[in-house]
């Protein structure tokens, strides 16, 4: 959809400013043009041609993490994140020269090397032959930087009777960064390529650990193509199709950080909690802000605006310290990286990814 298609949504914004109570980029800057209302105004200005396309304009638009908490606080539930996406798609067409080099490179890297990090495709993890109709879609971030998370996911799935295929270097990038940053035409192409690639392989069920791949496959792809396979997050599969049980050798107090793409975007709140609650010797505590109110960890903008992103992840870590958790569990590699970088400054708390915790609990370790 083009920005023009969102004109009605833009006019629905009352400019009440209630989004200030949620928007993390506003909270940490107190600059209203980094708030949802500001971004809707910037989109309106684009439509009427009154904006000044400069570095500040781009920064205000590109620093939105698409975390969607503004919609939770918004009385008429304006789709601000979708407006921002549509605005970016205009900017990608009209002002590509103003995009930070990082983003352009990341986009090219997806198109050329099937990952957003600019690394050779060969750096992805190894493949595993399993049932051909069930695919564990690892995701670039885990595949390149955190293969142990994928290995642990596999271990858990296998222990519970599912032996999925892992494509390794052959796994395509889901292309989220394209749609996130406005390269919509490129994204459409990638989406249809990925879908036919998976269909041709006879895939019927895709299991993801990465919430971003999950949302991209399950929701963004549906905007442009129809899917013949089912997409499930690992936590959904474990709760629905298996009976997970585990135990830790030592007591541990754990909190759970809802990734924006899994929670607010896709409504998966309960499954991760059910899994945690089913682990003996694990004490589960909620963060001060959880579920719908969960605070974005800043992950999506860490590379572009590290200072702002750090303030956001610091806030998550502070919350965990407040509730006395020693581990902040998240089922997202982006959140993991973000939270770990803040937790590194605090001896009392660490970041932990869910598959690793589950694998450990299965081993009763």
């Amino acid at each position, binding site marked *: 959809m083009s920005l023009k298609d969102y004109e*009605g949504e833009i*006019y*629905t914004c*009352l*400019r*009440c*400013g*209630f989004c*200030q*109570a949620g928007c993390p980029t506003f909270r940490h800057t*107190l*600059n*209203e*043009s980094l708030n949802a*209302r*500001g971004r809707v*105004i*910037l989109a309106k*200005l684009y439509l009427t041609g*009154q*904006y*000044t396309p*400069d570095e*500040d*304009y781009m920064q*205000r638009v590109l620093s939105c993490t698409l975390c969607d908490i503004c919609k939770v*606080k*918004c*009385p*008429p*539930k304006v789709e601000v994140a979708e407006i921002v996406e549509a605005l970016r798609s205009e900017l990608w067409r009209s002002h590509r020269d103003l995009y930070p080099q990082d983003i352009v490179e990341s986009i090219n890297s997806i198109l050329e090397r099937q990952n957003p990090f600019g690394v050779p495709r060969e750096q992805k993890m190894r493949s595993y032959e399993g049932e051909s109709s069930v695919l564990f879609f690892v995701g670039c971030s885990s595949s390149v930087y955190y293969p142990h998370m994928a290995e642990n996911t596999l271990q858990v799935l296998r222990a519970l009777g599912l032996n999925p295929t892992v494509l390794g270097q052959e796994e395509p990038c889901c292309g989220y960064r394209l749609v996130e940053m406005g390269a919509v035409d490129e994204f459409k192409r990638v989406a249809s390529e990925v879908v036919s690639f998976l269909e041709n392989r006879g895939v019927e069920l895709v299991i993801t650990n990465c919430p971003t791949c999950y949302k991209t496959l399950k929701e963004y792809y549906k905007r442009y193509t129809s899917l013949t396979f089912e997409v499930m997050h690992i936590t959904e599969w474990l709760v629905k199709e298996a009976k997970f049980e585990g135990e830790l050798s030592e007591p541990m107090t754990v909190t759970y950080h809802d990734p924006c793409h899994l929670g607010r975007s896709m409504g998966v709140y309960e499954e991760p909690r059910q899994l945690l609650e089913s682990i003996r010797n694990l004490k589960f505590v909620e963060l001060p802000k959880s579920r719908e109110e969960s605070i974005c960890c800043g992950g999506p903008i860490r590379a572009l605006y590290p200072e702002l992103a750090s303030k956001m992840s610091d806030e998550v870590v502070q919350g965990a310290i407040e509730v006395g958790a020693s581990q902040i569990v998240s089922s997202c590699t982006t959140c993991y990286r973000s939270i770990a970088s803040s937790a590194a400054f605090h001896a009392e708390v660490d970041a932990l990814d869910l598959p690793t915790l589950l694998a450990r609990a299965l081993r009763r370790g």
Partner: protein
Amino acid sequence: MISDAVVRKLEDIVGSENVSTSPTDLHVYSYDASIAHATPDVIVWPQTTEQVSQIMKLAYEEEIPVTPRGAGSCLSGGPLPLKGGISITMTKMTRILDLNPNRLQVSVEPGVVVDRLNEYLQPHGLFYPINPASSSIATIGGCVGEDAGPLRGVKYGTTKNWVLGLEVVLPNGKVIHVGSKTFKHVAGYDLVRLMVGSEGTLGIFTKINLRLAPIPEAVAVASAFFDSADAAGKGVRDAILSGVDPSGIELMERAVVEAASKHAGLKLPQAEFLILYEIAGSKESIEPRVRKLAKVLKEAGATAVDVAYEAEERARLWKARKAAFPALSRLRPTCIMEDVAVPIDNVGKLLEALRSLAKKHDVMVATFGHAGDGDLHPTITTDERDEEEMKRVAAFRADMYKAVVDLEGTITGEHGVGITKKPYLKLQFREDEIEVMRSIKRAIDPKNILNPGKII
């Protein structure tokens, strides 16, 4: 336009990270929640009284307009810099300075958000009762600027009843302290009352000393249904006269209830008028008061009265009330929330007048509001891009203000005059009266640099 030299001086005062001349930021700071807009030349975020004072001294010397801003949730254009100049944004002054539970007082900086203050007070068993519907973002400074009113105005009044003292930076940069730390004082003119509701035109508040209240022990909410404006008016008036001491009385008419129920996914009985009454106080007092209220309402003509004692059920009703505005805003592209008040025995007549004027001008108007204060929000849903319809909207508004003044009411109960109601002030006051206001403004702000072009 502001010279580079002035911008540099501002940067010297507050630090360059607290000054912006970015066209992008200036565009965004051209708006509040009203339909007006006006663009500043520079935005400044001070952090101390001293900085505010220095900014004002500089502005005074250079004769640059300065417009204070809080969260920018104003519905009348108050924080919009009509003459350009400096937008002085108070959102970085967020300290809660001094809580004194034994005195029921707290002192805060102006950027403190109302809900944050109440979260802070809650463990002490205290609260600041003036929570407008915008309390999740509205700053105390902005509330003082507008004399904001709460949902529970029947019992607690408005901001002016809770501000004991103010630190104010005057247009010439001098810092004064007005009011006292006592609940009553008559030493000299009441400058606190003058400042509260001055919409940023007389001084910039940098510290605010507030009175607090203990959190009531128990609460119940009664909902009553009425078939006619006349009966609803009686239901408001008689509840107050009965002595059952409701803390809030909120009204929604049929169109609002319909939209709100749909929006919030609630099932509410449909009636021409739904009125919610909150009764708060000691545990033992609630039931007898509610029983008496139900009797009074039936006699006033209520077709049914329900009572919610449980927190969950009360929350459901308040949710519907809070969904009123957002639900209406989804009906058409543009939504204008009006704000008019009449004496409490004229609420029924106001409701009737609103309905017949909406019909006359063929505009969509749905009314809800703080009926117990006589303060209603007739809300117009329209499309700002349709010129012909906007003309009818303007005609409706002009007639509405006339009707309100005829009913001995006011053109604004809580949202302020700002830009959007300035043309109508003369309906309510004669030239002599407005001239007194002007002479006060001249005495305090001889160069007319503080929020110029507003109110008068």
